[in-house]
């Protein structure tokens, strides 16, 4: 299940849906990413997430399919917000239901790692020094690339 939306989401409702969709699973793993109030030592007043809608849909669907091909998952949820968000706001949710907890954890982490380096979203931060586009982090690429190595 993939959703791209400006509106906030309710993690409790998403867990309930994941448990229902993945009925029979032994474990649910969920990650929620939040807007931080500081970045690179600077206070953040807000950020705006721009995205490429058609490609974001395709990439998130691809990331979900990739996770399902790697681990036996009973349910997957990926939600990414766009637009203007403030510190403490939810940005992204990834969640998995699996029979075994190791699969749920690995797949959940894979989803967020891959999403961060492949899904076409871009953050612009508002700081006291003005607005700027956030630069991609090399270590995110390395984190995501490490998953490639786990694949034969």
């Amino acid at each position, binding site marked *: 299940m993939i959703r791209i939306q400006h509106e906030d989401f309710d993690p409790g409702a998403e867990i309930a849906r994941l448990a229902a969709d993945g009925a029979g699973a032994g474990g649910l793993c969920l990650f929620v990413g939040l807007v931080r109030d500081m970045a690179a030592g600077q206070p953040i007043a807000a950020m705006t997430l721009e995205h*490429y809608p058609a490609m974001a849909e395709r990439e998130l669907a691809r990331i979900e399919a990739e996770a399902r091909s790697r681990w036996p998952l009973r349910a997957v949820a990926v939600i990414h917000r766009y637009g203007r968000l403030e510190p403490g706001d939810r*940005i992204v949710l990834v969640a998995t239901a699996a029979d075994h907890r190791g699969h749920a954890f690995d797949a959940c982490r894979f989803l967020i790692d891959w999403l961060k380096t492949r899904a*076409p979203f871009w953050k612009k931060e508002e700081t006291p020094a003005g607005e700027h*586009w956030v630069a*991609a982090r090399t270590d995110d690429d390395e984190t995501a690339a490490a998953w490639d190595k786990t694949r034969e």
Partner: protein
Amino acid sequence: MKVLYFAFLRDRTGTGEETVNPPPEVRTVGELVAWLSTRSQGHARAFAEMAAVRAAVNQEYARMDRVLGPDDEVAFFPPVTGGSGR
């Protein structure tokens, strides 16, 4: 051919989307970049640092040697920064 720009490329080109008709010798994404760079100073600045530019053709990541067709949707954008913090 539809060309889309996101993030700093949109800021620098001053547009999010434009329809272009490059000459027939523009066959690849890389050749399109070179041709687009001549359209305006803003375009030239957008493509000044190609290490910070990614391309997609028809919503899929594409390399600079990807061959283009007249009905393709080509997008240019920086490396993505979605998800949460670090």
